[in-house]
């Protein structure tokens, strides 16, 4: 499948270079292709040596791979970013208010804006959190919001990631790599720096420590060195200067969490956990979890430790809740949403389902709880047999799926085997909510490296790019 009509980030319909890409395009045109090949090889070698890799699940388990890095940046003009940033702040504020409301009064359900069973029967809704107060009433301290650009360049929110969004380490490493490979091109642009992120993250985490804790001890909790995002866990712990702990390093005594150190137990106040709710505490959630800490939930409910993000945050990032986010913004903030949702068909609704079944070949169908690009159908790219196979699954379990029009994602010039060619991209900015809601200019740009592909996930052959937000 090739989408003919898409927004090209670098050139307009007439093929003219857009003003914010002009300086880069002229620099690039002076660059011989051999140099680019050489620079790309240099980048690969450096990423390998630095061990900036991710582990792949399933076949070839245990193998570490590089996420392909593309050396052509994605550039966002200052005014576009300002709108995006305002929209992201607004959206994440509303999402946090929504989660707080769901676990307390449930006003939004009583007002009839969202069907109660949609929320309360959702697998991500955690009854144990009902009535529990958390520091600053904040749940999703770290949010990764996936943004795409379609049509004539309008931005849309594709999904909200409020559980354990990953990718920020690549945002930081990509910038370092670009500055190392092409120092001179940075002199032609005022690119907003991104390297403050670890500081901002640490401040955010400290600001949501349990009330009364003066100098909180923050840790990063990882499932371990074989997790696909382990590099990022280790990276963030190191950049923040905090311990990287596994479940086995911690224990709970008298509703207080401690870590085991060479000098005896040390109190832990804030846990930036990169592990799903289900695995946090074998006495409360999955009994077979060896990754968690027995008694953690009890300490958490007693307000003696902060988990970041909060248990149960996933209730707001589920794809079946996504269609209601604009409604949340109106309900809690009394504002019109700055950023738009992608029109979404909820297959659990009979009307929507019949529309989806009639138009399968044009739609993207996603699992409500899925992540990472697994279990989805991209209609226009699928064979007839794949579409029919999916139809059967859909009819059997409509409530598990939503569908959206196949967006003509914007494309950015990318250095692929065939030379420089447009490839489809998305953007994941990271929004931090603590004492204030803030974000680093830009985010992680992911790129679908196969020609025509719209799937940008690293597990599906996607790559990444450095993202430049220009300063005004």
């Amino acid at each position, binding site marked *: 499948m090739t989408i003919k009509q898409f927004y090209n980030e670098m050139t307009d319909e007439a093929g003219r270079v857009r003003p914010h890409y002009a300086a880069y395009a002229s620099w690039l045109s002076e660059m011989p292709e051999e140099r680019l090949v050489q620079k790309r090889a240099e980048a690969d070698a450096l990423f390998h040596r630095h*061990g900036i890799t991710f582990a792949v699940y399933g076949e070839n388990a245990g193998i570490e791979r590089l996420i392909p890095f593309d050396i052509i940046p994605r550039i966002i003009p200052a005014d576009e970013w300002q709108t995006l940033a305002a929209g992201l702040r607004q959206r994440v504020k509303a999402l946090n208010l929504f989660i707080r409301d769901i676990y307390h009064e449930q006003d939004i359900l009583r007002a009839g804006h969202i069907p109660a069973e949609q929320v309360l029967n959702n697998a991500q809704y955690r009854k144990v959190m009902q009535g529990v107060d958390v520091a600053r009433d904040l749940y999703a301290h770290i949010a990764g919001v996936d943004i795409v650009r379609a049509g004539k360049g309008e931005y849309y929110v594709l999904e909200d990631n409020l559980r354990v969004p990953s990718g920020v380490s690549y945002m930081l490493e990509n910038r370092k790599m670009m500055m190392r490979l092409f120092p001179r091109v940075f002199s032609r642009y005022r690119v907003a720096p991104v390297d403050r992120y670890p500081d901002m993250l640490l401040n955010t985490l400290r600001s949501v420590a349990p009330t009364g804790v003066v100098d909180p001890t923050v840790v990063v909790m990882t499932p371990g060195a074989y997790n696909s995002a382990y590099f990022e866990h280790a990276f963030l712990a190191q950049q923040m200067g905090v*311990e*990287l702990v596994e479940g086995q390093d911690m224990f709970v005594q008298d509703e207080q969490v401690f870590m085991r150190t060479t000098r005896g137990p040390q109190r832990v106040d804030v846990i930036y956990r990169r592990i799903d709710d289900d695995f946090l505490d074998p006495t409360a959630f999955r009994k077979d979890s060896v990754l968690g800490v027995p008694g953690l939930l009890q300490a958490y409910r007693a307000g003696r430790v902060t988990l970041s993000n909060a248990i149960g945050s996933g209730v707001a990032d589920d794809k079946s809740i996504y269609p209601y986010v604009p409604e949340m913004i109106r309900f809690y903030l009394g504002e019109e949403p700055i950023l738009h949702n992608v029109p979404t068909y909820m297959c659990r609704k009979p009307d929507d389902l019949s529309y989806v079944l009639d138009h399968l070949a044009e739609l993207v169908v996603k699992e409500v709880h899925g992540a990472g690009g697994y279990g989805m159908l991209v209609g226009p790219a699928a064979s007839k047999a794949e579409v029919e196979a999916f139809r059967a699954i859909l009819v059997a379990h409509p409530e598990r799926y939503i569908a959206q029009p196949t967006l003509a994602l914007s494309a950015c010039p990318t250095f692929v085997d065939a030379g420089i060619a447009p490839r489809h991209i998305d953007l994941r900015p990271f929004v931090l909510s603590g004492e204030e809601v803030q974000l680093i200019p830009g985010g992680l740009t992911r790129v679908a490296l196969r020609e025509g592909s719209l799937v940008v996930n690293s597990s599906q052959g996607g790559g990444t790019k450095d993202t430049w937000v220009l300063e005004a």
Partner: protein
Amino acid sequence: MLSRTADHLYWMARYMERAENIARILDVNLRMSMMPQSAVQEEQAWGATLRIMGLEGAFHQRYAEISPEAVLEFMVFNSENPSSVRNCLRAARENAHAVRGTLTSELWETTNGTWLKMRDFTPEMLADAGAGEFFEWVKYRSHLSRGVTIGTMLQDESLRFIRLGTFLERADNTARILDVKYQLLLPAGEVEGGAADYYQWSALLRSVSAFEVYRKVYRDLITPARVAELLLLRVDMPRSIARCMKEVYANLREVVNDQSAETERRAGELEAQLRFGRIDDIVRDGLHNYVVRLLGRVQDLGDRIADDFLVPVS
């Protein structure tokens, strides 16, 4: 610091040191095999290499007979031999990976880079002239990793546990090398080394980079007792047991906690006994018995350090 972190750092260093010592032992054998010697002698020498690491049994389960190729394959590449150079470098890297946030990026990249390069070596590449070059490479990577450690790591607990791992492993390895070679070269416990033994003894010295050191310290013929003295008791010799224990004791004192007093005492006692020991007494009572007891005490310290600091106590 986290007990688990300390554990990974300690083992990272131990495995790197072990890889270096195995490379040293094999390298010396390789050089010796280029000199005129009988088939029996050659087989004994390669067999001794296996005995040093206590791997004779494991070897014979897999190989019909001792040959240089088989020993090299087993000690460098074999994936079932936990002490093969390849497995040591992999284990060093795995341990580093588990705590990469605690390491400086230089140290992580050095350890990771060593492993990535190790994967490119094949037994065929070692078959002819390549082996000597390979052992040099292993030694240099170990030197590099130690240098990067000292040159870039903050002088805090992390460094102490890395150093503890290095010196405990080195003490163990030096003691083993000395013991096995001593038995091989002096089967009847005789003290005089004839002229024919010169190459053997100098090879032993070279395996621990002590040949020039010996010349400088003694300015005299190589005698077995002096070799033993140099490797056991000389505090100024960087690979001697006395030096290793001095470092172990010094590093241990920097990390003491509520339950480590007895470990500290035992390390101090051993360090003092080596510092004030006399080689004549050791040789008279039998070097082999002495080294066996020494290995037991080094092992005991390793176990106690694991209990006191590394293994989490619930």
